């Protein structure tokens, strides 16, 4: 029984997705599995999926980042403004990826140095960054990008460009988490900060790294987002941090830290996107969908906490 539980916990995202796909097959027949809908799912999952990959690192350390929605809006406005002034896309991309990593790193550093809860630090960042994006754009949308984002709007080898970014991000994240010392230290930090410190790990540095990777992923998501909307909106992406956290949790990560995977988070994001699409296809009010999403998140967290020792909650 314990073994069965382990498998359910580990693969809950996949199990949920499998059930959902079976339901979809019964309800919509071939529509759901058409080529057009595959593109649709990929388009829809690109932004929350990329955010979820970054969020995985943060949640693995036992932290949380509430600032990603606001950060996405700010970087979205910066991408749009740079594109409008005809800066080469590659330069713009490098700049926002760097800026994302920097902002994320600052979050991580503040948490490490002040010993404040990640929840509070990133909540503050969420508020400030939202203000910054409105200041940056003088309260208005940034439009008139022309063809600047066209390279990112193409379909490459049968998949949207954004889907390739997401898939590569998942692959790289998986390698970093499983094959590098840094990755192992991220797991260790989430497992127990005190033990990691005793083992000689520089926990502050690991935390800064995890939050910086998260910020980098927000930069990627901002590029995808801008390619999709072709403008910059200071009020964009409200609540996206919660979508990302939900995807990570549904994908089998534990909010206590130390358990989770990038691939699982991707599956979680796909699960949520497919649920939304199925509801739209069946013409069901999207408020019903919000309710269902809440139930799914509760179930996912409950499943993760089953059989886990309470003492795993890190004492800081």
């Amino acid at each position, binding site marked *: 029984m314990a073994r069965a*539980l382990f498998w359910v916990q580990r693969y809950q995202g996949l199990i949920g997705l499998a059930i959902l796909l079976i*339901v979809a097959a019964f309800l919509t027949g071939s529509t759901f599995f058409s080529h057009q809908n595959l*593109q649709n799912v990929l388009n829809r999952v690109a932004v929350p999926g990329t955010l979820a990959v970054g969020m995985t690192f943060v949640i693995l350390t036992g932290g949380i980042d509430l600032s990603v929605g606001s950060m996405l809006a700010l970087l979205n406005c910066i991408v749009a403004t740079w594109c409008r002034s005809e800066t080469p896309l590659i330069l713009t991309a490098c700049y926002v990826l760097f800026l994302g990593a920097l902002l994320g790193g600052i979050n991580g550093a503040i948490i490490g140095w002040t010993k404040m809860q990640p929840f509070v630090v990133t909540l503050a960042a969420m508020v400030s960054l939202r203000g910054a994006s409105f200041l940056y754009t003088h309260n208005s949308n940034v439009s008139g990008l022309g063809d600047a984002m066209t390279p990112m709007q193409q379909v490459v080898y049968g998949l949207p460009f954004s889907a390739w970014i997401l898939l590569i991000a998942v692959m790289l994240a998986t390698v970093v988490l499983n094959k590098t010392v840094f990755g192992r230290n991220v797991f260790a930090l989430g497992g127990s900060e005190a033990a990691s410190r005793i083992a000689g790990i520089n926990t502050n540095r690991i935390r800064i790294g995890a939050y910086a990777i998260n910020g980098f992923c927000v930069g990627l998501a901002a590029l995808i987002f801008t390619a999709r*909307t072709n403008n910059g*909106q200071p009020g964009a992406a409200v609540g996206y941090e919660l979508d990302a956290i939900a995807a990570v949790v549904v994908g089998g990560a534990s909010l206590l830290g130390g358990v989770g995977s990038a691939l699982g988070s991707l599956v979680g994001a796909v699960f949520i996107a497919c649920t939304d699409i199925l509801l*739209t296809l*069946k*013409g069901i009010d999207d408020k019903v969908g919000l309710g269902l999403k809440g139930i799914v998140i509760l*179930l996912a967290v409950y499943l993760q906490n*089953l059989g886990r020792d309470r003492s795993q909650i890190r004492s800081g």
Partner: protein
Amino acid sequence: MKRLALLAIVIGSAAVLGCNKPADNSATDSATKGNTASSVEMPLVVFAQANSQDPWRQVFDAEMRDAYDKDFSKRIKFEEQDAQDDPTKQMSVIETLMLKKPKVLLVSPVDESLEQTLAKVYDSGVPVILLDRGVPGEKFTAYIGGDNVEIGRQAGEFMAKKLNGKGTVLMIQGTAAADPTKHRAQGFMEAISKFPDIKVISGDDCGYQRQKARSYMESFLQSGKPFDAVYAHNDEMAIGAYFAIEAAQAPKKVIVGIDGCQKEVVEMIKAGKLDATFKYPTPGVIGMDLASQIVEGNKTPQRKYVLPTEIVTAENADKYLAENPNLAK
């Protein structure tokens, strides 16, 4: 045992998700499969709404549902999805709705970033009818909406008459980046510019929200600057301003709002608390009618339909209530 129960819940909720609408679905399925002459599949018209939260859009939705139940359910099958004001969400909603192969797409775009998504739909041969908000470019079939500049102009003329051509007006503004805000200000200033003795103070951006307008009005009253009238870019803010003035027991001001979609506003006008509002007409029913006619093939739509406004004052408030049964509560 507990775990088994949980699994049962998971599967159960999936089943609920699945079974939520099977009746409706099997009806259309059997209609498609049973190819007898009597069962004809109704042409599908889908509607992607920007949001269903603000009072004006609630009336917009309610009028459409009403009209569908009464008149259109025999001609088309109608489905609506809301995007909660998130443009990327609306893109996904539209892409998903297209999988159902609708005959016409009605859409009230969240903002102009929907341009490419809508162009794709239009290029695939599905007529696109824009409601209330437009997108740049040429790739849509028709646009239906009110004229905010004209509404602003009429509000300005009314205000000038009310003030006998002399006084100070505080203009409480809507969301800064939004087109209606710019247009409602522009029309108003145009009309007022003919009256050199009327001064307009450009107030803060109160985001079309009652609570923000109230707080702003409270601090404006505190400042002691004299003014005779308030022009708010929507009724919610007009109500907020009224509450602040009433609570401060300040002398009565002329207060004019826009939208005319709430019963509360009309009642307040009847009671003399507010002076007037201008109806910002909802385009939903006309859009549905146009869609039905396109589906039936007996109409080449115009490019643009401009809906007229209507003033509501204490004199015609009762008549207005009777003519508009779907006003928000």
